[in-house]
């Protein structure tokens, strides 16, 4: 096994007395595309939020020779760890262009920022057309694209995606997944949390199944898609 880009050991997240994540361990190697699937309330979002330091947790998080659990959320993007939060979190009152520039907030290489902006507009032409519009006027799918674009502006090595398909029409979900594949093809490592297990497993090479705050199954996507229990529980068969 190659050196993992991120390795999580015995992660626990508690909300008051309730344990949402109960000792989760997993690893993602550089260039991999891995998903965490599971039902509502299984602890997927809590896991991702803990990795991004949005909520306190116990356990170890090793990322690129750093101990993430000892860092603050705003320090991570400059280390190449980007989060696209659940529910997108675009800045509704900033324009699309300003939203993308916020993604490069920690950078001060102006020329490179402009070049990256152009790249994103090539990748997401819908955003280019609406460059000067307020992000709040975009459709849900476009907002999700913008949120992903904003994260890319931080030049991440590891992209954490929290339920990018949430609340979107099926056709839009497919487009978003195409975008995520495109990002991964450029060498960005992706950790995707999804309820839409089928689509997630189709684009990722490996997957983890989370239930009640624990990882219960870990396997390649092909095996998970073939697993009768997974099919019954998450693929609606």
């Amino acid at each position, binding site marked *: 096994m190659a050196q993992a880009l991120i390795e999580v050991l015995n992660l626990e997240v508690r909300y008051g007395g309730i344990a949402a994540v109960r000792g989760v361990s997993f690893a993602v190697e550089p260039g991999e595309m891995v998903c965490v699937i599971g039902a509502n309330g299984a602890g997927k979002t809590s896991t991702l939020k803990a990795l*991004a330091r*949005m909520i306190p947790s116990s356990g170890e998080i090793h990322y690129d020779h750093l101990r993430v659990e000892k860092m*603050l*959320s*705003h*320090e*991570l*993007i*400059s280390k190449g760890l*980007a*989060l*696209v*939060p659940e529910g*997108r*979190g*675009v*800045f*509704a*009152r*900033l324009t699309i262009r*300003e939203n993308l*520039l*916020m*993604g490069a*907030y*920690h950078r001060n290489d102006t020329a490179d920022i402009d070049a990256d902006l152009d790249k994103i507009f090539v990748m997401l032409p819908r955003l280019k057309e609406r460059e000067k519009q*307020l992000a*709040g*006027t975009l459709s849900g799918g476009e907002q999700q694209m913008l*949120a992903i674009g*904003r*994260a890319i502006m*931080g030049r991440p090595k590891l992209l954490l995606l929290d339920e990018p398909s949430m609340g979107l029409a099926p056709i839009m979900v497919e487009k978003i997944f195409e975008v995520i594949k495109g990002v991964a093809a450029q060498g960005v490592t992706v950790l995707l949390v999804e309820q839409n297990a089928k689509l997630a497993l189709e684009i990722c090479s490996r997957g983890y199944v989370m239930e009640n705050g624990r990882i219960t199954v870990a396997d390649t996507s092909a095996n998970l898609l073939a697993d009768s229990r997974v099919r019954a529980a998450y693929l609606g068969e």
Partner: protein
Amino acid sequence: MANFITSLDKKNKLGLALIAVALIVLPFVLASAGTAWVRILNFAILYVFLALGLNIVVGFAGLLDLGYIAFYAVGAYVYALLASPHFGLHLPFWVIIPIGAAVACVAGMVLGAPTLKLRGDYLAIVTLGFGEIVRVFMNNLSNPINVTNGPKGITLIDSFKIGSFDLGKSDVFGGLIFSGPIKYYYLLLIVLLAVIVINKRLQDSRIGRAWVAIREDEVAAKAAGINTRNIKLLAFAMGASFGGIAGGMFAAIQGFVSPESFVLTESTMILAMVVLGGMGNIWGVIAGALLLSFVPELLRYTVQPVQEALFGHAIIEPEVLRMLIFGIALVLTMRFMPAGLWPEARHRREMEAKREGKK
């Protein structure tokens, strides 16, 4: 600033020159109706300072602060204590005003630090409490050591002086009488210009965009690498400093401070100026502050004569009627112009989008 002037075309330059002339002549026009009106104008400019300071906290960063008057109080008391016979200290104003700003800034961070995780209603309640605590302190800090002189307040506060030139006294230049209030007016005007420039630069800066981002979505702002704690504290600190500067000038102009000047109503009034004018837009906030300072004064002088002309005598006490009319006007404005008189462009577009969405 130089770029700004050269970028203007001829028509704008003429307009700007006319406004400048009008602002220079204004106090003399008002003085012909009574020096009281120049004083009202000066207080209106002080309210503009306060509204612009609160706008940083509420308008830019989206943190609802109901105790903002506390920083005005801190600035005023710092000036009063360091330039009055109370402690026998008479430091010059250019020393005290920065001290007042610094003390208010620290007070802003003292309020900001424990409230960083609060938002909306909860933050509003804590700030409201903070404002009251400061006032109660000023009211009671006369025992066992007399610091603030309690409810009696501090009197005989020094005016601004540069050598023998005293802004509190009348002077005659070239046949024109420059009364104390007129001299203060010019000083306030210069400070106002500086405050507007600072606010404008802040709004268009990286920090300004970070404030908007925090207001919109804190998780996403953190993910974008914004140190939300420091940026929020900065909003509190900067807003408070403006309040402190305004407070110091208030103490010098008024010559007297007491806790009564810093009641909750004042905080809500300043918030009303920000919201009515158009949260986030500097020009709107200025318009809101001027309007809400002048209208009550205009009503003070018109309510009584109008009643007498209509009914022969005053039916409703003028003071009551004045606030009633004022309140109704506020409610109507917010009903029909929910984004304020002169909203920030983004805010307006958003409101319009919402309205169209409803149709």
